[in-house]
């Protein structure tokens, strides 16, 4: 009987510790954060390394939103982020044109890259307003959708005089990193003489506001 009580108590404690993995902030209820950023500070970066050259690119044409219940972040989160391929920059105009050409990302046919959240797990609380977690989602590139898992963190800032300088409302800052294989998305890196790696590291740095 004693063992059963201890097991039950452990379960209750485990459950309460799991539910504790959420933001401890002033805000409550369901919140929707919009990532449209007219200042162009929201950014997705992509990195390729080959013996010939390392290439870092950026994209600032980002839109989308996430919605979650502050009390149950992992269970309730859903959202989607979209990136305009036309906003991608590698620092060389000619290379940007190649990247958007039909031989490569084919921006005319597939003008957007997107990531849609399916689930969030392994949530760890690193501060009252900060969570680290894994996010599983559908990544769509070149018209092909594959599931990817990203390591991510989110920082929640209640509205303050400081945050108002950036945008009205509460803010959420999200960082995420994952790697994709270009061949999985029908993009042949051999087309441009392997100057671009098969594996591309993708980084996301976005801040969203819950007020328009």
């Amino acid at each position, binding site marked *: 009987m004693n063992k059963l009580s201890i097991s039950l108590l452990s379960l209750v404690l485990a459950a309460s510790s799991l539910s504790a993995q959420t933001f401890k902030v002033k805000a409550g209820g369901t919140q929707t954060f919009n990532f449209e950023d007219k200042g162009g*500070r929201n*950014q997705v*970066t992509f990195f390729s390394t080959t013996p*010939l*050259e390392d290439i*870092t690119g*950026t994209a600032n044409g980002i839109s989308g939103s996430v919605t979650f219940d502050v009390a149950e972040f992992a269970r309730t989160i859903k959202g989607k982020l979209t990136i305009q391929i036309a906003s991608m*920059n590698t*620092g*060389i*105009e000619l*290379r940007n044109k190649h990247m958007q050409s039909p031989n490569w990302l084919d921006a005319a046919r597939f003008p957007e890259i997107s990531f849609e959240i399916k689930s969030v797990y392994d949530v760890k609380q690193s501060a009252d307003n900060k969570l680290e977690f894994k996010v599983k989602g559908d990544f769509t590139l070149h018209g092909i959708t594959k599931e990817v898992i990203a390591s991510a*963190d989110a*920082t929640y*800032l209640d509205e303050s005089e*400081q*945050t108002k300088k*950036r945008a009205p409302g509460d*803010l959420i*800052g999200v*960082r995420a990193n994952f790697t994709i294989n270009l061949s999985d998305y029908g993009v042949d890196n051999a087309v441009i003489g392997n100057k671009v790696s098969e594996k591309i590291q993708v980084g996301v*740095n976005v*801040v969203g506001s819950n007020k328009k």
Partner: protein
Amino acid sequence: MNPSQKKILAASLTIILISLTVWVYSGREIFTKNQILVEKKDELFPDMVQKVWVDKFIWGLDLTGAIILTTVVAGIFFYRRLRDKKK
């Protein structure tokens, strides 16, 4: 080799050496760039680093190669043109 040809040879070698030196001191990049990425910290979210493009000319191997090729072609052209004519 007459004195004019020597001058052409010296000028060509100087141009090639200068372009190689500039390339080495510019960071030995493969491709010429007009912009570079610099990292900027976010004041509100200190963990976040934003990458910002800044206008800066970086001399690449492609430009060095083009200069060397042009110099060699022009050098050969003038070298041959300034040959002593046989009497």
